[in-house]
Each structure stands twice: as structure tokens, then as C-alpha cells.
């Protein structure tokens, strides 16, 4: 057996796990590991400019592929800079392995230089964490970290490694375990057939059914099974913000996103439904609105791999614990084998009702109340220019909601955004992480002038590694989402939501060696965008001036039911 130092074992284990890129930033506690990285070329290290970006790159890789991304950060400030990224992944159940350096074991607890109790700091935002106690444990701990991060309900795992565990002169036998067994962790692999039967009976008897699906369909790779079931039944499908792309956005059975900024027809259909099949979604407060008024006439079937997601905020009538893929497959088999089929007459009436709702609102926005372009127009153009095929990585704010509403996602894993934590600054590093792994694909970052400045330093990483992402900055010269709330609830007192002293983004990106394009008129948009996308091997930043007064609609009325919505600045349901 080969003898390796702890530092070499870390790198070798990552290689043996099939890792291509690690995103990281060096520091004292990691020097042995960085030296081991230097002397091999199986695993490529990507040097970011801020540790938060490393975690978002790793996270976005995971969102695009389903496999855990890897970040490597040093002890103390390196580790704490990674906290936002870990929390972002945790809230959206994204698999990630974050290796943090730690001070020498004998110094732990002594307030040593750059010491932070990272196991303690990260405890509420990880699926699990490990602290290496002896170098021999490294291969097994890394294997377990990936296993835990990727299986069951995915999530981030922290591996904290004191520097003396990586000493180059101390060598140990290395073997990467093929698999792991943990008596306390056995993720479930299929659903309960009896429960599925109950659900199928309810599905077939439903008169006003809705399929409400979320991030679990994306991370659980169950899009194909969802489409098959929905097609077999002919029922309407709505997706959460995290579930977009799980069902094709251009399919007529798709009724849009639901929730706070969901479509009129999706929220109306949910409210009036008599049966909701929830797949891999967690009845988040941005979806349900007031839980006491949530879908009063609906029976609820909830499929989720995590029992704790079921009946957490909304009680399920039929809980089904299991992976979406296996459960949906079995469900479809049972539906096909069933003697009865959905009542064609009720379904027809239900679709007529839904189409009527669709016609009544259906994503309208005004273009005549401003000289400036509307952000929605930009997203519609983006969808057109990229044929709805791009990886769209978003930041957080109004632009994120417009992207969710107006980009038509036809494939899963291509809409990449921070939903649960809502982390401004996520978009650019996310786009970088995706692009490095899918160099042939079109990768876009939709952002705002506020969010982009939260990780703008990564323009430098983009230069170093030649990562030709396209940035679409909807520049409304304000923290638009905040401003919208201030308009609606604080009589337009725009406290601190105005972005004074913006940089000249074109000059800024040019100084890093990238291309900047400023667009101010809608007439110029299409040509400019096509020009940007034609530059395949350049990073292009499109600074697009949009109406600062635009709001995102629909918007649910706080604490109301799902059907209580503002539809524009003046209309309410």
C-alpha cells in the first residue's frame, strides 16, 4: 500500500472521488495541503478572490450536476468567509464538501492565531461535520463527507482539518474506501407501496388537481418521471422557485411558478384545488402565504425524502417518504395499472377555469408608463436569444423574480439561484462554477447593480481562468426589491435602498480585460445581446438601464390566502 502524508491524502481522496475542480483560497493552516496540490495535476485548484465565491462556485456546480462541489478554505477568517456560502447551500439542500483548515490540535481552544471553532460556527448550517483527529482517518472521513452530502436530502458537509494532521513528513497507508456503512445513517431508497396506492386513488378521484413540485425534483433527478406522470394524467403543474425547469416551461400543462410572486393562474389553481400532489417541495412561507388560509378545499399528498419536511408547516393527508424519482415511477405504474382513470368531464371544466385565469392576467406588464426599458422585456429577450437553453444563474432581488417569471426553462438544473437564504452575491460565482464545468454551454448571470457588487472581485478570477460567462445586469439604480416593499408598505420612504455612486460598469470590467456593453434603449437590446452572445470566448457584461419604478407582480398580500394578490400597482384580487 502507498504511503501518503495527510495533506497528500486529502488531495488523493478528492481525486479518487472524481473531483475535477476545487475552489479555494490558501492560508497558514492549509500550506501543507496547498503544497500537495502543487505537486499533482489530477485535481485543478481554482483560486477565487474571496472565500464566499469559492463556496458559491462549488454549490452551483452541484446544482447543475447533482454532485457535491468542493471548497477549500483556511482557518479563522477563511472559514468564516465561507459561512454565507455554506448557509446558502444548506437552505436549498445542495450537496457540498467544504474543507476548512484548523490550527494545530494542541493549540485548539487557546485562542491561537486564526483559530475559529468552525465545527461550532457551522453546526446549524451543515448536514454534518467532521473534525479530523488522526491523519489515518482522512480517506474515510472524506468518503463519508461525500456520501452524506450527496445522498438522502442533500446538504453541505464541513471537514475541519488541524494543520498537524497534514504534516508532510508523517506518512500513512492510503486506501480510498469503495463504500461506507454508517449504522446511524441509511437514506431511504423507495416509497411505501401502500401509501402510494392511497395517493393514486386520490389522484384519480380528484376533480381539481394540481401537481406542485419543487427543488426535490431537480436535485432528485426526477424530472423525467414527473413529466411522464403529468402527461399520463393531464393535470396542471406548478413549480416553486427551486423547482423551475423540473417541468418544461413552455408546455401547456405548466401554469407557472406559485407563491409570493407566482403566476395568477398558479396561485388561483392552488387555492381552488381539491387535491394537491406535492413532490419535493417544502410548503415554504413564500409559497403558502398565511398557513391558516392555505388551500381550504385541498387534500394533500406530500412526497419528500425528508420526513421532517412533511407536515412541518402544512399537514399532509397522505405522507410518502422516499426519493421523488422512485416514488413517481411507482405512482405512474399504479396509475397505468388502475381500472379507473381521471374524470374527463371534471378535468375539462378545471382546465377551462385555469385557462380563463391565465387569460385574465397571464404575466402582463405595462411598457407605456416609462421611457426606460422594462426589466421583464430584457428577460424575455434573453429567453429568445438563448432559446431558453442557457444556464441562468441569478442573484437576489427583483431581477431574480423577473428571471424566474419570464425565462422559460425547459430543462432541469439550468435555473440556478439562492431561494432559501436569498444570498445577494451568489450569481456571478455561481455562473463561473457552472461555466468552468460546462465550457460549451451558454452560461448567464442575471443580476442587479446591487447584488453584482457583492462579489464583483471575482471579475479577476474570471480573467485568470478565462471563464466567458455573460452578465446581464438589470440596472435600476436601486435595491429594487427593498424599494418595492418601501413603496408598498412605507409610503415610498426609500430608506437606504438607493444605490448612489455606482461605478461605470463598462470601464470597470474593461479594466479586468473583459467586454462591457451599455444598453439604454429597448431598440438596441436585441442586437446588443446577440453581439454579446456571439463573443463565445469573452466575458461580457451588459449594463442595461431599466425602469427603476417597476414592481414585481403578482405579489401575494401578506398573511392572506394564496389567491390574495396584488396584480399591479393598482389592481388587487
Amino acid at each position, binding site marked *: 500500500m502507498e504511503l501518503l502524508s495527510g495533506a497528500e491524502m486529502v488531495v488523493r481522496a478528492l481525486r479518487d472521488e472524481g473531483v475535477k475542480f476545487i475552489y479555494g483560497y490558501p492560508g497558514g493552516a492549509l500550506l501543507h495541503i496547498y503544497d500537495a496540490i502543487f505537486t499533482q495535476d489530477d485535481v485543478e485548484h481554482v483560486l477565487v478572490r474571496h472565500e464566499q465565491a469559492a463556496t458559491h462556485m462549488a454549490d452551483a456546480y452541484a446544482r447543475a450536476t447533482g454532485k457535491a462541489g468542493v471548497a477549500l478554505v483556511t482557518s479563522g477568517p477563511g472559514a468564516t468567509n465561507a459561512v454565507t456560502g455554506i448557509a446558502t447551500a444548506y437552505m436549498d439542500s445542495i450537496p457540498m464538501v467544504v474543507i476548512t483548515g484548523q490550527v494545530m490540535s494542541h493549540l485548539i481552544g487557546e485562542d491561537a492565531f486564526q483559530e475559529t471553532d468552525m465545527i461550532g460556527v457551522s*453546526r446549524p448550517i451543515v448536514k454534518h461535520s467532521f473534525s479530523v483527529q488522526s491523519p489515518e482517518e482522512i480517506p474515510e472521513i472524506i468518503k463519508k463527507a461525500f456520501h452524506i452530502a450527496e445522498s438522502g*436530502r442533500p446538504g453541505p458537509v464541513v471537514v475541519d482539518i488541524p494543520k498537524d494532521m497534514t504534516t508532510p513528513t508523517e506518512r500513512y497507508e492510503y486506501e480510498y474506501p469503495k463504500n461506507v456503512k454508517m449504522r446511524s445513517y441509511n437514506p431511504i431508497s423507495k416509497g411505501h407501496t401502500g401509501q402510494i396506492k392511497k395517493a393514486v386513488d386520490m389522484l384519480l378521484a380528484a376533480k381539481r388537481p394540481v401537481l406542485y413540485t419543487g427543488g426535490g425534483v431537480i436535485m432528485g433527478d426526477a424530472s423525467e418521471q414527473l413529466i411522464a406522470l403529468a402527461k399520463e394524467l393531464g393535470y396542471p403543474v406548478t413549480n416553486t422557485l427551486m423547482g423551475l425547469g423540473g417541468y418544461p416551461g413552455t408546455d401547456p400543462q405548466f401554469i407557472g411558478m406559485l407563491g409570493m410572486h407566482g403566476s395568477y393562474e398558479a396561485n388561483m389553481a392552488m387555492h381552488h384545488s381539491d387535491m394537491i400532489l406535492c413532490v419535493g417541495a417544502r410548503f415554504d412561507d413564500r409559497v403558502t402565504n398565511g398557513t391558516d388560509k392555505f388551500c381550504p378545499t385541498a387534500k394533500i399528498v406530500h412526497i419528500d425524502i425528508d*420526513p421532517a419536511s412533511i407536515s412541518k408547516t402544512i399537514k399532509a393527508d397522505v405522507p410518502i417518504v422516499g426519493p421523488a424519482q422512485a416514488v413517481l415511477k411507482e405512482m405512474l405504474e399504479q396509475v397505468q395499472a388502475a381500472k379507473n382513470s381521471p374524470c374527463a368531464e371534471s378535468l375539462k371544466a378545471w382546465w377551462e377555469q385555469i385557462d380563463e385565469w391565465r387569460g385574465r392576467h397571464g404575466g402582463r406588464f405595462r411598457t407605456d408608463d416609462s421611457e426606460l426599458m422594462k426589466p421583464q422585456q430584457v428577460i424575455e429577450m434573453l429567453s429568445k436569444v438563448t432559446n431558453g437553453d442557457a444556464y441562468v444563474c441569478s442573484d437576489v432581488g427583483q431581477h431574480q423574480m423577473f428571471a424566474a417569471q419570464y425565462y422559460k426553462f425547459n430543462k432541469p438544473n439550468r435555473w440556478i439561484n439562492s431561494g432559501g437564504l436569498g444570498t445577494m452575491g451568489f450569481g456571478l460565482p455561481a455562473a463561473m462554477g457552472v461555466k468552468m464545468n460546462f465550457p460549451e454551454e451558454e452560461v448567464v448571470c442575471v443580476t442587479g447593480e446591487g447584488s453584482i457588487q457583492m462579489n464583483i472581485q471575482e471579475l479577476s478570477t474570471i480573467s485568470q481562468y478565462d471563464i466567458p460567462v455573460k452578465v446581464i445586469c438589470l440596472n435600476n439604480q436601486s435595491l429594487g426589491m427593498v424599494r418595492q416593499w418601501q413603496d408598498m408598505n412605507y409610503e415610498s420612504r426609500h430608506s437606504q435602498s438607493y444605490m448612489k455612486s455606482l461605478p461605470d460598469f463598462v470601464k470597470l470590467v474593461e479594466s479586468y480585460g473583459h467586454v462591457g456593453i451599455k444598453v439604454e434603449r429597448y431598440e438596441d437590446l436585441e442586437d446588443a445581446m446577440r453581439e454579446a452572445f456571439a463573443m463565445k470566448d469573452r466575458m461580457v457584461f451588459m449594463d442595461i438601464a431599466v425602469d427603476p419604478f417597476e414592481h414585481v407582480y403578482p405579489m401575494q398580500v401578506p398573511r392572506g390566502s394564496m389567491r390574495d394578490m396584488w396584480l399591479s400597482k393598482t389592481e388587487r384580487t
Partner: protein
Amino acid sequence: MRHIISVLMENEPGALSRVVGLFSQRNFNIESLTVAPTEDETLSRLTVTTVGDDRVVEQITKQLNKLIDVVKVVDLTEGDHLERELMMIKMKANNGTVRAEIKRTADIFRGTIIDVTPNTFTVQLVGASSKLDAFIEALGSSNIMEVVRSGVSGIARGEKVLTL
């Protein structure tokens, strides 16, 4: 309602802080908590008493089960079970009447006097928490100098066991 939840978990550093952290993170209440190794040295057993409605208690057991270090969880209050807590209580006992009174009350509750000085008695009492509460009440607060309680331990009645 009050629940007694028993947890078998890996006897590893950090496991306890994950359990305790979960309670504060998710705003679950802890009335008492005890933890000690079991006959299998790789496992610890933790007992927590908590108060909450059905939805909250369901979340508590589900969230506990999700912790990687947790091997098994049972809500003992769902079935017949035994509950015991140990208390040591130190009291002022500086005259004959008080000493006699404490001794009599301790006898009624089947407590034992385990330490005596000219001015104090220390009584040990074992039982369900409600019995311990009743003892404190019966003594009246004026003579009590110090109370230490172990927190609740519980075990299912009959043949049911919580093991691997």
C-alpha cells in the same frame, strides 16, 4: 403536553452539542436533559423532557432522527413507561422540631438522609419528577438551602427496549 424523548447516539465528540444546538436552533423547549454512556461504550443515551403540541413533538423526533450521530429516537410518553429522577436537597435543620419534621416528610416520600451536620440535613429522593416537586412543596421553601436534580431518565415498561 410533556414528552420524554430518549435518544441513542454515537458516543462521539460533538454529538451532544448537535442535539442541544438543534433544540435552540429550532426553538424547541428543553425542560431537562440527561446524558451518559450505555453498556455499549460506542453509544450514549440521552433523555430529554420537553413540552409541546403534537406538531412540535413530531418535528422534534423527526429532526433528532436526521442528525447523523443519532442512531435511534423514541418518545417514551407514547407508551407505558417508567420515569425516574434523582434529587438531593440540602436543608437548614438547626432545631429539633425542624429536624423531626424533615425526617418525617422524607420517610413519607421514601427519601433518605444522606448527610447530616449540626445545622443541615441533605435528603436524597428518587422518583417521577412530579413526586420530587411534591416533596419540595411539602417541605416549604423556607428551610431549603440548595436543590440539585439529575433530570429525567426513562425506560419503557415490559419487553420493549431501545437498542441498536
